[in-house]
């Protein structure tokens, strides 16, 4: 089956700077694909090339198997939900949604029918006569999506459309976008710098940095099996230590950090050898905290230390633990079972983690 969208060796140069550097990916029909990256990494440039507002310097873009390189934006079967939504303020809601259908030369009666159907689908029936500025942020969002979806595009592009919403509504819209995608059964390509948006909604995520894709995979892949140090650092929170490989044996590696802490980590198939400088990443939730050292017997990394600070944040509460030799401070997630509810600053604790939870990457690769 041909993918809905396929980009091959896509490159875009602005003068001397390369905004997008030899990127290839394909998005299967009906899936939700996200491009996640910090601002300025080139994700908007990719989006604008797919929509047709920018010409790629080289490479190819295919939609449903046909190259669209010489097709102007108004002839591509791709529509875009803009960052600030770009609803037409001079038209009412029905005219906004019907705009594309009018341009396609559809009969007036059919347009009215289609618009009503679209409003029904986004759960806002009967608002067609309202003005754009009478709607709330979430409603505008849905109208912007409906305006594209009535045209039944092969691919819908979304350029950080949740950025302008407040936190509560953003959380709500994440779920809603996913539901709308399933309801319309259309391929979504979503770009964002917010990892939680990408992780929650996407079937597949591409993590982008400095014009290149670092890794493409499912949310779980990126989170648990990052390919590069950048992905490990960018997706989710991590304790990050720089150090040198003291001993290398297959998948297992022994690392001494610059501050002197020794820890066991895993290379997950990456080649490392003794003496290499490495970055080690351990997620705070992968670290077990205990009152007695015996409880941590199953872990091959064990550290004793004292609590230096408690960062209470409800379910995501965390403590900072400094080891007894005073090398490093380690962020550790608190279990929610309540046994550490009365932990105080300065209390002695033991922490431990399995070596395969400590991802080691050759430094300088990121």
């Amino acid at each position, binding site marked *: 089956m041909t993918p809905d969208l396929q980009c091959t060796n896509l490159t875009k140069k602005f003068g001397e700077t390369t905004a997008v550097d030899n990127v290839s990916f394909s998005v299967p029909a009906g899936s939700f694909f996200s491009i996640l990256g910090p601002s300025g990494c080139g994700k908007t440039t990719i989006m604008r090339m797919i*929509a047709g507002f920018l010409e790629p310097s080289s490479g190819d873009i295919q939609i449903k198997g046909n190259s669209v390189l010489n097709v102007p934006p*108004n002839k591509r079967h791709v529509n*875009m939900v803009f960052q*600030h939504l*770009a609803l037409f303020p001079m038209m009412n809601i029905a005219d906004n949604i019907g705009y594309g259908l009018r341009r396609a030369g559809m009969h007036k009666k059919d347009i009215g029918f289609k618009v009503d159907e679209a409003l029904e689908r986004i759960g806002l029936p009967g608002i067609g006569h309202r003005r754009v500025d009478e709607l709330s942020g979430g409603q505008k969002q849905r109208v912007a999506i409906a305006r594209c979806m009535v045209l039944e595009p092969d691919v819908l592009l979304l350029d950080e459309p949740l950025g302008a919403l407040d936190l509560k509504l953003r959380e709500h819209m994440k779920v809603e976008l996913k539901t709308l995608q399933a309801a319309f059964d259309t391929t979504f390509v979503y770009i964002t710098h917010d990892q939680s948006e990408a992780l929650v909604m996407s079937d597949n995520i591409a993590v982008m940095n400095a014009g290149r894709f670092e890794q493409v995979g499912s949310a779980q892949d990126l989170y648990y099996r990052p390919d590069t140090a950048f992905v490990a650092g960018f997706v989710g929170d991590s304790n990050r230590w720089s150090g040198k490989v003291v001993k290398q044996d297959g998948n297992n590696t022994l690392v001494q950090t610059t501050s002197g802490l020794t820890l066991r980590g895993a290379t997950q198939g990456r080649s490392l050898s003794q003496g290499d400088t490495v970055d080690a990443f351990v997620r705070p939730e992968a670290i077990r905290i205990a009152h007695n050292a015996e409880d941590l017997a199953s872990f091959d990394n064990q550290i004793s230390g004292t609590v230096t600070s408690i960062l209470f944040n409800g379910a995501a509460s965390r403590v900072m633990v400094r080891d007894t030799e005073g090398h490093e401070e380690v962020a550790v997630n608190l279990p929610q079972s309540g046994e550490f509810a009365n932990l105080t600053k300065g209390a002695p604790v033991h922490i431990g983690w399995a070596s395969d939870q400590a991802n080691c990457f050759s430094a300088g690769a990121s």
Partner: protein
Amino acid sequence: MHREAKLGLILLLTPFLLWLSLLIVIPHIDLLLVSLRERVGVGQYEISLGNYFTFFTEPLYMVTFLRTAVMSIFATILTLLIGFPVAYYIAKMAKGRAQSALFLLCLVPFWVSELVRTFGWMILLRETGIISNLLQSVGLASGPVEMLYNDAAIMVGLVYTSMLFMVVPLITTLESLSDEVVEAGYDLGGNGFSVLREIIIPHAMPGIVSGSIVVFMLCLGNYLTPTMLGGKESLWFTELIYSQFIVRFNWELGAAFGFLLLILSSVIVWGMLRLTGQSLEKTMG
């Protein structure tokens, strides 16, 4: 506290009210009164509509009046047609320094007085002027060509004089149109023409209307440009008013003419607003 606030308001309003009453309301009331009297003997006047009758019975007055109105409308449309692409380029396509430089270029001619600017056009267009000499030296004309003293010369002068007053409000409204909205217009299947018609022009409407009103009023009430570039061949209504007041010393008829011009401009502006579905508050606010 309340009394002080009231005093402050009165002090703030006083200059404005003085200006309004002394320079606008009182002169116009007097103008109306003068236009409604007729001299029956030396120093003897009586109230009558005679001056207005004179206007409607003398074809020269009537024709000049309508000619002025039609040409002003035409000049306004021409200014809009030339000014819109210029404003769109400055507001949306030029970036950074180029944008301010282009805007400055629009402004530069207005650093000298209208009189000097109009003389500039006379130097270009007159029989012994630059264009005429150029045409002769290239061999496109056998003798001197006179391009002054006709309607086209007036039109050129009026459009040139009014351009800035059209371009500035247009730039202001067009700048507030976000690029995203225009791109969305294309993205959803619109072509250049439909994006212009459905998105850009409706958005720019307040600017178009306010620019047109200002340009139209400036053209209608212009005296210098039609007099200098139009000469005797093309009369402008303001010239008739001037000649009644200053040359003929017939203040009564001049005042009637002045009032008719005021009514004419009000009616046309009102009609324009109705036609475009705009209100004065919307375009000026």
